């Protein structure tokens, strides 16, 4: 026989006794005997699977059985076993929002509009009300944000927030279906709001015309249940991830490049976050952006619709979201692969001992700008200016007859669209093996579309002993702006 000390909240089930006797050779047997004697205890000590509830702590002579042999810990006569509560709780997260927020009623029009949802058992009236009560925030109203916002609005998500500060450009229209030709030059949020209001006037569209920053992210995310990451750069991606982890809000993640896309659901309570997958950002410039590398116009449609699907599943609480699963889409081969992701216990933000507990400077973290203590008056163009040349300077020097060799490091299909007269095409990937074609003593001007790839090529050549390597600032786009407006831009 051993003595079991009963905590206050359980005493009503032991006839108000604060200590009772039970027998058993192990803790498991002892507790089984206890619940046989006092059956009301069972539901509070054990969960539906018959396991001790996580907030029930059992100590034997002041030692936590978790650090002994758990329920197999042997019990000897005269031992004292204590049941000690942990008390836990917290504000609602997206997963339980529907239980907490008052469920709105649907109007007659909404019954008609959502009838194809209402007849599905997985959605039904309850699910449609959950959607109406829900709030989703889209980061970006671009390629991914367009299909995400449009499908979520059509599906009846009650509040749709959008963060963006860009204006619509002609080059957006190939994929950003929120915006149309007459919208070019307008703020993206203005055209997004028009489009979404026309699509479903029942949806409350909340717009935030600002860049997402470490200063405003927590405040912006706070009212929302699900965050949809439609960003196109690493600093913002890490910022969205960390803010989601800190607030306990799921992140329906998607990214796209050329023919490839990725999707997952990060920052749920049980699942991994983006940092579990990528603890460190890639070196700046290594992973080209869509502006540099291009993207198939329908690809954000494909990935954005996956993100919207995941957001809806999270709100409805149905199916198997992409939690702990990393989906890789290859549109060229039309293959979908899935990688298993695990929550990293050493993750700096969602691990057991996080080192990142507030939002940091993500531009610095991603190496996009120098650390504050070494930052001087320089702008965010990393190379020193004596390693760069502007298009105007280049034109002047060419006109003077200076002997300069212009190396265009873009791809041949880009070279077909526009080029600087007299330039030599050597795609970036070929630079290492074709560097021997270049004269190490000649003055070289490296050039690409906007200056990122050519900057890398210039760094490489300098490391190989080339002494006079300049990077054309702003690439061919700046050349067209400043020198030769007759050429087409892309």
């Amino acid at each position, binding site marked *: 026989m051993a003595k079991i000390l009963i905590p206050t909240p*359980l005493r009503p089930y032991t006839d108000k006794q604060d200590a009772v006797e039970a027998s058993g050779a192990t803790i498991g047997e002892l507790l089984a005997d206890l619940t046989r004697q006092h059956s009301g205890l069972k539901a509070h000590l054990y969960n539906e699977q018959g396991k001790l509830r996580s907030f029930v702590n059992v100590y034997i002579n002041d030692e936590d059985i978790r650090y002994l042999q758990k329920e197999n810990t042997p019990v000897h006569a005269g031992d004292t076993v204590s049941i000690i509560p942990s008390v836990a709780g*917290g504000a609602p997260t997206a997963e339980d929002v529907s239980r907490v927020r008052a469920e709105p009623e649907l109007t007659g029009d909404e019954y008609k509009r959502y009838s194809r949802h209402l007849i599905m058992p997985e959605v039904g009236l309850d699910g449609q009300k959950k959607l109406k009560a829900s709030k989703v925030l889209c980061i970006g109203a671009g390629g991914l944000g367009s299909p995400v916002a449009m499908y979520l609005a059509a599906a009846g998500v009650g509040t749709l927030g959008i963060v963006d500060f860009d204006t619509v450009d002609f080059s957006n229209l190939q994929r950003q279906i929120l915006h149309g030709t007459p919208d070019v030059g307008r703020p993206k949020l203005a055209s997004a709001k028009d489009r979404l209001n026309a699509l479903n006037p029942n949806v409350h569209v909340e717009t935030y015309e600002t860049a997402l920053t470490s200063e405003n992210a927590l405040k912006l995310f706070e009212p929302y249940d699900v965050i949809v990451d439609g960003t196109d750069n690493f600093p913002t991606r890490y910022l969205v991830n960390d803010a989601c982890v800190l607030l306990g809000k799921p992140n329906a993640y998607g990214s796209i490049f050329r023919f490839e896309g990725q999707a997952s659901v990060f920052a749920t309570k049980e699942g991994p976050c983006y940092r579990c997958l990528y603890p460190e950002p890639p070196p700046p410039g290594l992973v080209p952006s869509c502006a540099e590398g291009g993207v198939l116009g329908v690809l954000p449609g494909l990935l954005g619709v996956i993100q919207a699907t995941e957001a809806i599943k999270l709100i409805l609480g149905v199916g198997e979201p992409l939690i702990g699963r990393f989906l890789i889409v290859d549109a060229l081969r039309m293959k979908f692969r899935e990688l298993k992701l695990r929550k990293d216990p050493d993750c700096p933000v969602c691990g057991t001992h996080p080192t990142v507990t507030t939002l940091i400077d993500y531009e610095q973290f991603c190496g996009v700008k120098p650390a504050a203590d070494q930052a001087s008056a320089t702008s965010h163009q990393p190379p020193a200016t004596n390693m760069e040349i502007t298009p105007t300077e280049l034109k002047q020097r060419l006109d003077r007859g200076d002997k300069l060799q212009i190396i265009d490091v873009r791809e041949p299909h880009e070279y077909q669209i526009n080029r600087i007269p007299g330039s030599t095409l050597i795609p970036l990937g070929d630079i290492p093996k074709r560097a021997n074609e270049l004269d190490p003593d000649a003055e070289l001007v490296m050039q690409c579309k906007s200056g990122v790839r050519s900057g890398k090529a210039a760094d490489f050549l300098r490391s190989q002993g080339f002494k006079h390597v300049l990077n054309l600032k702003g690439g061919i786009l700046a050349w067209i702006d400043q020198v030769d407006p007759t050429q087409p831009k892309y």
Partner: protein
Amino acid sequence: MTDRRLTISREVDAAIRAHGQQTYPHECCGALVGRDGRVAATVPLPNTTEEGPRRRFLVRPSDYREAEQQATRLGGELVGFYHSHPDHPARPSQYDLDHAWPTFAYIIVAVAEGAAKEMTVWFLQEDRSSFDEGTLHHGENTDSHSASAVHR
């Protein structure tokens, strides 16, 4: 078990609100000490959650024991716990429900942008399926013997 009342003194009310404001934007937590549906004192406790204190609180077993001893020292017993919901309504979450103990009173104070607002009290239903909302009464003075003993 419906229509349960919990009487709290003005000092207790003020202490819970002040604690919620002090820890904002994180959740605060603490124990309620008293007897027979009356709360006479609070024991503020550290929030030891590892899941993000903006949305979670955790009272460790060691702190629970400490609170229990404190309650005995004050001449009362543990009647429940309080916590705050920063920028969220004073309604229990699913997480609150999953982790609730029977018979305890759970006070929730909503803290909006740093200012304490609505305060509610909840009791777990016997079958653990949901909470019943109780009614909070503000007693000026505690009239029972045991409770006055814990009144500070």
